[in-house]
């Protein structure tokens, strides 16, 4: 049996979701954004909610997410995606609203909106893509950057604390990696909080199941924010090839940001 005999429409088992437009992604080769876009589109298609879904895209690499999804989209001001999503959900409670943000948008400039949206317990779905660096602007340090990680603004590695006896003699204190997902899990307004990754097929399937649950919770009217963090890569600014960047993610990002559910149905999961 030749390849031509197998490649026939009746034998198709997997293809790109029909909810993604034909426009090629502008992301770098191997970027996790493409995979996450794909699984969100698959979830929306499987749930049959494409006619009533409204997405909110951030400022960052995924600023043009509206070009790729065949659903309604709004582009919010930098960091204000969840505030925008709140407004949409309150005006149209029967619509399914999701925000899609990176770590610079959600955990840096938009920390205020993120925490207050979670504190108010809006019935929306938030997707948070964490790659530990500012991708679009050229690899500067983000709040989620790992300790010791070299970026454009921390060329000697991120230092959380000042060296002993150094005082304030010009050595910056860069702070600790911000665990915003654990932070918002302790707010009573959040319903479902989880952390996933997309570096191999098993984790893509798990991430897809988590996103599906986050959308189903919202459709079923369970009040509260459904928050999915996805640990992703940035091979261009990590200065690695895509395959090596995924290995680096497993070795360095995952010990700092362990995967798994943090809060399910309003209760913190005991580890």
């Amino acid at each position, binding site marked *: 049996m030749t390849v031509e005999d197998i490649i026939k429409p009746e*034998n198709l088992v997997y293809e790109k979701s029909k909810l993604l437009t034909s426009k090629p*992604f502008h992301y770098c080769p191997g970027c996790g954004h493409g995979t996450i876009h794909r699984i969100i589109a698959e979830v929306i298609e499987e749930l049959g909610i494409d006619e009533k879904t409204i997405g909110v895209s951030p400022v960052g690499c995924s600023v043009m997410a509206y070009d790729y999804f065949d659903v309604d989209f709004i582009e919010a001001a930098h960091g204000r995606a969840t505030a925008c999503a709140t407004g949409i959900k309150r005006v149209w409670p029967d619509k399914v609203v999701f925000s899609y943000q990176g770590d610079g948008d959600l955990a840096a400039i938009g920390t205020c909106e993120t925490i207050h949206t979670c504190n108010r317990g809006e019935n929306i779905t938030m997707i948070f893509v964490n790659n530990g660096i500012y991708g679009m602007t050229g690899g500067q340090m983000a709040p989620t950057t790992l300790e010791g990680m070299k970026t454009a603004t921390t060329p000697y590695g991120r230092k959380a604390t000042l060296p002993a006896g150094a005082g304030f003699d010009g050595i910056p204190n860069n702070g600790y990696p911000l665990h915003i997902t654990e932070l918002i899990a302790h707010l009573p307004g959040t319903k479902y909080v989880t952390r996933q990754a997309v570096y191999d097929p098993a984790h893509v399937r798990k991430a897809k199941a988590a996103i599906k649950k986050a959308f189903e919770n919202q459709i079923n009217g369970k009040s509260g924010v459904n928050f999915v963090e996805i640990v992703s890569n940035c091979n261009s600014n990590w200065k690695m090839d895509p395959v090596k960047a995924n290995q680096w993610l497993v070795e360095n990002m995952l010990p700092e940001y362990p995967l798994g559910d943090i809060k399910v149905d309003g209760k913190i999961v005991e580890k």
Partner: protein
Amino acid sequence: MAGFKGAVSVDTERCKGCGVCVVNCPMQVLGLAKEVNGKGYNYAYMAEPDKCIGCASCGIVCPDGVISVYKVKL
């Protein structure tokens, strides 16, 4: 041996040659071509088509959604 036989079709003009599908293929079917596409990327192709079992792992990890997977039962 009874089982499945698969095949993948790659949209070579959209493929960016990141190689994530190559390392995630459990049967080592895929490889990166020596030729390049219109954008200058070495696109993915089936280097050993006989080994493919149609598991769709490559399609699931592909960041650009360029891979379609087909499978038949033998």
